[in-house]
């Protein structure tokens, strides 16, 4: 028995080492493909300009886009646009998530609340947040308030649906097990329900951040003085192709970075979960 376990332990350590090596190689490989895929896009971009597949006037060279970025960084306007967009998303996102978590618990916990709110939630969930922008501008003017309200709305509903469905789908077995050990309601909530919800709350954050960001750009395209969307509208008005393309790239890159950040957090706090892969 003892000898068998010892042997098992060595093989386990070895396979652990092999796994780590394999993971490292996979990460490197992924990074390679990541660079290659964007490299190909940039190459096609420059090539199609060079052979006049596209009108070079309507399609700025990569270098010019970079230069406009550096110039705007120099005079501080790029930072101002980016931080304006960021702040809106952060405030709207956090307000929406907090409200969604609180209300999600109420709906998940109380059957009456669920029956009452379910139809309404489905209606509002189906309603694209952008559809609210004209109304909000009339209500709150074209200042920050109308945008933050729309963004709060945008992050609230998808998060709410994820959280309360997670609550409804919880396995009652763990609650039974905890009750049999003497847990009271508060302890069940804190020590059994909450830990199981953490992964779902993170999923909710991912979905909400995506929706928020998409809504933000739309809102800024319609009415804003500052923000990446506003920067793009200005560029469009003055027929400046470089800042316009720069805006598109920034929006994509920031969205990707934010999602990556949430996934990084997810990996750190939900290591206990069984992964299907």
């Amino acid at each position, binding site marked *: 028995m003892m000898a068998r*376990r010892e042997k098992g332990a060595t093989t386990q350590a070895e396979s652990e080492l092999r796994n780590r090596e394999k993971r490292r190689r996979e990460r490197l490989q992924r990074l390679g493909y990541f660079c290659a895929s964007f490299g190909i896009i940039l190459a096609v971009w420059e090539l199609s300009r060079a052979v006049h597949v596209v009108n070079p006037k309507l399609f700025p060279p990569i270098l010019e886009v970079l230069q406009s970025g550096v110039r705007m960084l120099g005079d501080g306007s790029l930072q101002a646009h980016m931080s304006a967009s960021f702040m809106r998303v952060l405030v709207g996102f956090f307000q929406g998530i907090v409200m969604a978590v609180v209300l999600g618990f109420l709906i998940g916990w109380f059957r009456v609340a669920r029956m009452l709110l379910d139809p309404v939630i489905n209606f509002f969930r189906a309603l694209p947040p952008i559809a609210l922008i004209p109304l909000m501008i009339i209500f709150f003017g074209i200042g920050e308030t109308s945008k933050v309200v729309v963004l709060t709305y945008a992050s609230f509903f998808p998060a709410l649906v994820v959280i309360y469905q997670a609550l409804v789908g919880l396995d009652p*077995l763990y609650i039974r097990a905890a009750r*049999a050990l003497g847990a*009271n309601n508060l302890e069940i909530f804190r020590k059994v329900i909450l830990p199981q919800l953490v992964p779902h709350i993170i999923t909710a954050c991912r979905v909400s951040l995506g929706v928020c960001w998409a809504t933000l750009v739309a809102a800024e395209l319609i009415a804003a003085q500052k923000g990446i969307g506003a920067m793009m509208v200005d560029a469009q008005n003055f027929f400046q192709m470089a800042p316009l393309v720069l805006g598109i790239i920034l929006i994509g890159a920031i969205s990707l970075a934010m999602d990556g950040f949430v996934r990084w957090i997810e990996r750190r706090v939900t290591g206990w*979960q*069984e992964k299907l892969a």
Partner: protein
Amino acid sequence: MQKGIVVDDVSMTYEGVAGRVEALRDISLCVAPGEFISFIGPSGCGKTTLMNIIAGFLEPTSGQVLIDDRRVMGPGPDRGVVFQQYAVFPWLTVRENVEFGLTLSANRKSASERKEIVDRLIDLVGLRDFQNAYPKELSGGMKQRVAIARAYAVDPEVLLMDEPFGALDAQTRQFMQEALLQILERERKTVVFITHGVEEAAFLSSRVVVMATRPGRIRKEIPIPLDYPRDPAIRRSPHFIEIRAEIERHVREEFEKQREGAL
């Protein structure tokens, strides 16, 4: 005062979509402290319902269950439950799982007491090398040992086990049966054990209760006249095989009756 478990004329009727289902009718029995009692019978004989009533998860339609003369009003730490699906908390490590009950206000212990109890129980179930592992890294048998240690931690009078080894392969199952007897040898509890396995019931129990179906009733109580500790080799002894055959005969008759009823 009557020590142990008293099941006093318990009946249970469900109001289902398909009408009334009489799951249990007039169940009465006593389980003495330290006894190992198994309930065996075809599916639908209400053995899990009975366990859920003793655990306090269900309230009987009539009758009552007493533990050391106290009436069962709901689940509590005096009755440890081990489920077939393990129910080990996947977000906690082995150690944290075993410690869980001790962190609750119902049986709060100081950090040093907790450490002592958890260390002792992790050794008792032989999971020292895995104490910091998460359940996803464990085999089914190991998960069930975590569940047993977790139930032991709050020092219950009674251990209620609902087909605890039902999901394990045949070898692990035998190994776990022997491990359970060893654990009980070192720290005795009253055990109520639900099973489908005739051999399992015979090997583990001091008494086997064969249940009849629809409504669930006690058909036959069979005392197992074998001394503890029981050696695994006992499974091959003529006496054991005889006992096993007797249980088998009652279970089989019930099964046939149920099948005739269905036809």
